């Protein structure tokens, strides 16, 4: 895969990360935190909702211990992503640590659905992860520096991330041998969205999904 085709894959993430990053940067500047911390956070944490959470905790003067516990619990869902990447990353060089570091919701989604010949898989994955992080950093720094002067009304552009997840769900549905997990996940997602508190919705739904997947392994594999 050449640069252009990889870049094209990441365009939906760019459309989501730049405005979302700007929103993050704007919030950071409202807390009167210098703009370069937006760069440090996006460069070293690189977790969308995690970084928003840290800002919220800054605002309420939480202790560093509380910040640590909260980010850990919020990002625990990434453990599921890694679980799906073990064999993929297995034979990669030390550079896989950057891939693991950069395993956000959106990067995971792209890596899991991109078909790359094995020979240049590592390079392609590194590039996808790096481009995604660049979008996020650019968005957050620009937001922190001049979030108030907006070039146009981009309200709603973050829906591209929702649409990305929709499209990738369809792709994975077509690729997956078993189809029951899809319908189970639809139910869990729907109920999770309605019943679970928004901040805990993702981790609770993922645990429920893993639970059903394991406990009902037999019936999942029966039929199709």
């Amino acid at each position, binding site marked *: 895969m050449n640069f252009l085709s990889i870049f094209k894959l990441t*365009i*939906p993430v760019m459309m989501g990360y730049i405005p979302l990053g700007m929103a993050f940067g704007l919030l950071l500047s409202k*807390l*009167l*935190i210098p703009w370069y911390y937006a760069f440090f956070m996006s460069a070293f944490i690189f*977790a969308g909702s*995690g*970084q928003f959470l840290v800002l919220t905790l*800054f605002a309420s003067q939480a202790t*560093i211990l509380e*910040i*640590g516990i909260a*980010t*850990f619990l919020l*990002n*625990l869902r*990434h*453990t*599921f992503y*890694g679980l*799906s*990447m*073990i*064999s993929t990353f297995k034979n990669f060089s030390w550079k896989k640590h950057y891939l*693991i*570091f950069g395993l956000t919701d959106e990067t*995971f*989604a792209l890596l*899991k659905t991109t078909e790359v010949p094995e020979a240049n898989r590592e390079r392609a994955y590194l590039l996808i992860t790096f481009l995604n992080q660049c979008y996020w950093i650019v968005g957050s720094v620009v937001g922190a520096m001049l979030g108030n002067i907006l070039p146009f009304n981009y309200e*709603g*552009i973050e*829906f591209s*991330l*929702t*649409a*990305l*997840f*929709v*499209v*990738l*769900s369809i*792709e994975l*549905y077509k690729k*997956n041998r078993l189809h029951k*997990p899809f319908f*189970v*996940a639809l139910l869990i*997602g*729907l109920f*999770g*969205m309605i019943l679970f508190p928004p901040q805990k*919705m*993702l981790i609770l*739904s*993922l645990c429920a*999904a*893993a639970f059903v*997947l*394991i406990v009902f*392994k037999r019936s999942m594999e029966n039929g199709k």
Partner: protein
Amino acid sequence: MESSYIIGSIAVAAILTYVTRIIPFLLFRTREPSPLIKYIELNMPLMIMVILVFYALKDVKWERYPYGLAEIIGVCVAVLLHVKFKNALLSIFAATLVYMILIQKIL
């Protein structure tokens, strides 16, 4: 806000975020993943992706006007276009555009 507090928090958040991402790789570094782990590895991504769709919609106010109509239409546009044309960029662009027009100009 003191800079030592900000830097300390960023460092802690950065390290713990990385820990959540590396846990499974550490667990299965030496031993071969069991058939159960392989089964999870194979099927979990599809479930994660579907749940991420609902996660992305978690802040929609369904009980108040416009009752999440823009989101429902946006998702439908993405699904229909993608089933019909199988072009990811087209589906995502069109759905986002429709959504933006809906929330900015119509609803």
